């Protein structure tokens, strides 16, 4: 039985190797942070982090992840003790309906892991493939800027 390492915990998986990671996270591990949005890799709601890269869990068969640690939004902190990126999203009130937010957070997490001080264009370039239907993009960008330790003034500026 294959094992998956998620948020630092190695766990055995019953699912077949072609099963997308998203279903295993939600149905077997009870980690409901990553969301099913389009199921086609086009919206980013299912984004998780693997080896420093943002990965779409709805299109990532678990057979690809043997021995490769996965981080989900649950791995960044708890409601009582949120991680820095989560705290920034809370401080900027970045969520409206919240459905896209776990994906946005994880996309930003992968960005900041590789590039702790991204410029405005780099932030926008990284997040451009994640969709938000409520339109809280400006607050999401502000949250990422805050987590990156940047001036919050650039809101609304074009890159």
């Amino acid at each position, binding site marked *: 039985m294959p094992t998956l390492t998620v948020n630092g915990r190695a766990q055995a998986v019953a699912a077949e190797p072609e099963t997308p990671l998203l279903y295993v996270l939600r149905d077997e591990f009870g980690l409901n942070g990553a969301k099913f949005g389009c199921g086609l890799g086009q919206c980013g709601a299912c984004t998780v982090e693997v080896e420093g890269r943002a*990965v*779409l869990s709805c299109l990532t068969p678990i057979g690809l992840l043997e021995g490769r640690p996965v981080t989900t939004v649950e791995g960044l902190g708890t409601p009582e003790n949120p991680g820095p990126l989560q705290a920034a999203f809370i401080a900027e009130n970045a969520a409206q309906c919240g459905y896209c937010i776990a994906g946005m957070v994880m996309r930003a997490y992968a960005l900041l892991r590789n590039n702790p001080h991204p410029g405005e264009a780099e932030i926008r370039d990284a997040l451009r493939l994640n969709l938000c239907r409520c339109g809280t993009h400006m607050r999401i960008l502000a949250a990422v800027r805050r987590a990156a330790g940047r001036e919050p003034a650039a809101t609304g500026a074009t890159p």
Partner: protein
Amino acid sequence: MRRRRIAVWLGGVALLAVAGSGLAAWRSALPPGGPEPGETVPERVQQGAVLAALGYCASCHTAEAGRPYAGGRGVATPFGTIYATNITPDPETGLGRYTLAAFTRAMRAGVDRDGRHLYPAFPYTHYAGLTDADIAALYAFVMTREPVRAEAKANALPFPLSWRPLIAGWKLLFFRTPTLPKDESRDPAWHRGAYLAEALSHCGACHTPRNVLGAEIKSRAYAGGEADGWWTPPLDRSSPAPLPWSEDDLARYLAEWDPQHGGAGGPMRPVVDAHAAVPKGEIRALARYVATLYGPGPAGSRTGPVDRAPGDDPRLGEDPRLGEGSRLGEGSRLGEGSRLGEGSRLGEDPGLARGAATYAGACAVCHESGGGAAGGVPYTTPSLGHRTTLRAPDPRNLILVLRDGVAPREHAPGPIMPAFGAVLTQAQMTDLAAYLRARFSPDGPWPGLDGTVRELMREPPRSGARAEASP
């Protein structure tokens, strides 16, 4: 082999040096100036806008996320990288001091206003066939763009190629004004298409193979070539496309996307995107001409789409991993010529089984949705067996598209595919590519697949390939 190539190359360089210095390599500078009254009237600018779109000027002269026509994009050639220049009318760094005469000389003779020879990455070998009226319209368009101050980046070419007088020798050997095909049995639209394809749209610059000195081999026109590290498919009888290309297919493909053949990828994407600004009649003309390049009747290797679906091969049925996710419906039967060769037993080879699992979990949700035309995921073909990419002589295009995906178009509908370079390891990429080839092509495994994957995945993948800047 390698040694022989180097010898040929060195011999060519020596020849060029002799020819270049013997010939009057020197060209005079032309006096500075600008558009005369009447040369930039609105009608001409509008004609020029359409012609600039059909000449794909922006696909080289606009950098990624750069200002329109301000240059800076690197064109990778086997000799080194050549950077496109700023063609906005900025007087210091662009074409601001070009008269129509200087612009015409650059377009027709590949010589800039200062008298320097231009590298043939700028396709003056095709533009030389343009009419005076079209060059004047392009001039009107270019000279009315917003001037941008942007110095041209220095080319990354080794000596002696960096020595421009050498280009004069190259021109002596290889530069002929294109002759436009004429055929009394064809209609005016075909002739218009021929003019566009041979001169303005310079199709052969990518779709014709080049010799060791980078010149198009005219005797093998449209036999396929290379662009920016991508394989460019032949447009002649040697096309490996699983289905023939009709004029209607080409017209759909060049305008947006064809439901049977799919849509453009790689360096052809900006070409198709540019067509958004082009009247339908021009696209139709191009399609009419290009359809005749394929020659009469289907080419010998055209076997129709291949799909070795599990039900078609008893060996596949034994592999539980090739289950539900990878079953296909009607129209996906094992066709002529799709016999299984060595090493392509989909159900037995462990690498192919791993590739099959990746396909089922990552690809099938879109690529087995039945095809965009039948109500499946938009911009997908009925199966990947319809894609010429899987019939290519080498796996570059497949690996590049798997690695970088297809970036969404800005402000317009179009295909989108996630970049799998972020999650696939080199071994996983190899397994997936081998599986796709074994299942969707009758041509046998790609030689050197491992090496190509290693080479193309050495660089960290882009964070999500950017859309081309719109022209």
